[in-house]
């Protein structure tokens, strides 16, 4: 039972890694984020982030399932 998490840009820098596997399946994306933000203290309000599960943007209350890949998307700066 696990989910894989992807980090980008400053979040990856702060976490010291671009991805990690969490040996648990929190009920929602919001619960997963709370867990990770406590561990890493990313420095972004959750309201500034977006979240994608299996390459699709979802709401924070989206349920998670075993094996999901969750991407935390900080404010973008392309272009």
């Amino acid at each position, binding site marked *: 039972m696990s989910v894989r998490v992807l980090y980008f840009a*400053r979040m990856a820098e702060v976490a010291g890694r671009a991805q990690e596997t969490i040996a648990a399946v929190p009920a929602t994306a919001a619960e997963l984020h709370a867990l990770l933000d406590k561990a890493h203290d990313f420095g972004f309000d959750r309201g500034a982030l977006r979240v994608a599960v299996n390459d699709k943007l979802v709401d924070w209350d989206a349920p998670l399932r075993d094996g999901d890949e969750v991407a935390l998307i900080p404010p*973008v700066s*392309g272009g």
Partner: protein
Amino acid sequence: MNSPAGQPAFISAAKFDTLDLRAALVQSGAGAVVVFEGVVRDHHAGRAVVGLEYSAFEPLAQSGWLQLCDRATREHEISRVVGRHRVGALEIGDCAVWVGVAAAHRSAAFAACEWLIAAIKAELPVWKFERYADGPGAWRHEASPGGPAAAPTMQV
């Protein structure tokens, strides 16, 4: 390099062949072509920049780009859209982002091109890391997140 959907990949680690990108627009038979290029500058906020790095979440950048193209095509009378964004290490003067629109009439081409680059900058999961001459580099995180509805009015 094509995405699984058979569309050219929006994210590219290689330098763009701008002649090649342009050719796809001109071949569409449209009379008006408008192109925007974002070029790496040697300064930001008064600090000397020696180089840039971009990273992207490619699957979502690709699907997000296709959605932007669909919306631009629905809302403007345009015949073709071509876009590409670099990732990896870029040098001063490199083209970071290239967006071209072909249309029968130039006003639609200008409007769609300007909307697309604003939407790319506001929405697509791409991040810029600036390497400064006078200290360590930094990831930039200026843009606010937001759905497609927010993009046209944002000035990023």
